[in-house]
């Protein structure tokens, strides 16, 4: 059983490109179609795992593993998810330090660095759209980005401030109702 869990999550770790909701069908196929848990239970776990900090794929693997086989299950599933990335990246890290100064590699990287920035800018806009930010709320992300970028405030403080702000606003709103 532990071995099956390990292999199932290794597969999930290998094919998580994109992350988040892109992974839903993949994990569901591994976990629900095998009869490890009901679809409802899985959706519940999925939504809670998304609201936790840390790496989403790891969170959900620990959750599923823990449900099925307690602590050891959680550990086995997490290791399965991590293993493919870990091995692949380590191999690249070992080689990359050797080829970094190669002329061709340097040229290719000069070209792809600006594209990386574009690849981060796009999900920023799609996220803004998917959580349906109102114009008034726009102050929060714009303010946060400017504080980090121009003022050099640590993102850690921004996150803590967002949690505190959300708590104050949300709990007050509940009181009014």
């Amino acid at each position: 059983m532990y071995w099956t869990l390990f292999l199932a999550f290794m597969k999930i770790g290998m094919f998580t490109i994109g992350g988040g909701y892109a992974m839903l069908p993949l994990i569901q196929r591994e976990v629900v179609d095998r009869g490890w848990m009901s679809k409802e239970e899985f959706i519940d776990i999925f939504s809670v795992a998304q609201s936790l900090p840390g790496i989403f794929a790891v969170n959900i693997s620990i959750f599923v593993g823990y449900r099925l086989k307690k602590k050891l299950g959680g550990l086995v599933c997490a290791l399965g998810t991590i293993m493919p990335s870990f091995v692949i990246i380590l191999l690249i890290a070992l080689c990359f330090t050797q080829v970094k100064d190669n002329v061709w590699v340097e040229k290719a990287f000069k070209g792809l660095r600006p594209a990386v920035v574009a690849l981060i800018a796009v999900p920023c806009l799609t996220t803004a759209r998917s959580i349906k930010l109102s114009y008034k709320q726009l102050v929060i992300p714009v303010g946060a980005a400017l504080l980090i970028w121009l003022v050099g405030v640590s993102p850690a403080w921004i996150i803590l401030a967002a949690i505190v702000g959300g708590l104050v606003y949300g709990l007050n709103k509940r009181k009014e109702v």
Partner: protein
Amino acid sequence: MIWLELCLVYLKIGILGFGGGYAMLSLIQADVVDRYGWISLQEFTDIVAISQMTPGPIGINSATYIGYTAIHNAGYSMPVSILGSCLTTFSVCLPSFLLVLLISYAFAKFRHNKYVESAFLGLRPATVGLIAAAALLLMNEENFIDYKSYLIFAVAFGLTWKFKIHPILMIVLAGVAGLLLY
């Protein structure tokens, strides 16, 4: 003490990393590049590119890579540097493990907890800001060396935004463009 610092930084990223891989980037960059200078901004950009090209979550990919590179840059040998990547990968996952164990005891209560729901009213919009900051911080003269860089950026942005081109394909295309233009 680089080992302890690496461990603490990645524990912090594991605890505060809300909103997925992209939102985590500015958190990683703030400590790994700006505060401790373990790697340069250019190396950081390269790591993000490599993380996007290879399978697996960006959080794990970057932790593994940065753990190795930081220890390697500090002058340690290859086998010791591998231990560095074990340490960072372990540290970034440890908070998740503890949190899931904790929450599993009170799962039903956690789902519709008013404190959790309220906190996310603030966290969700802030996440967008964190991703924006990650992009803005990388938009500097190390990565944008001349007008060609801006051209590549504009084309990559347009293609990804309009045609939803797959990130891996986009990076490969940009790499080819680099070979041709430079």
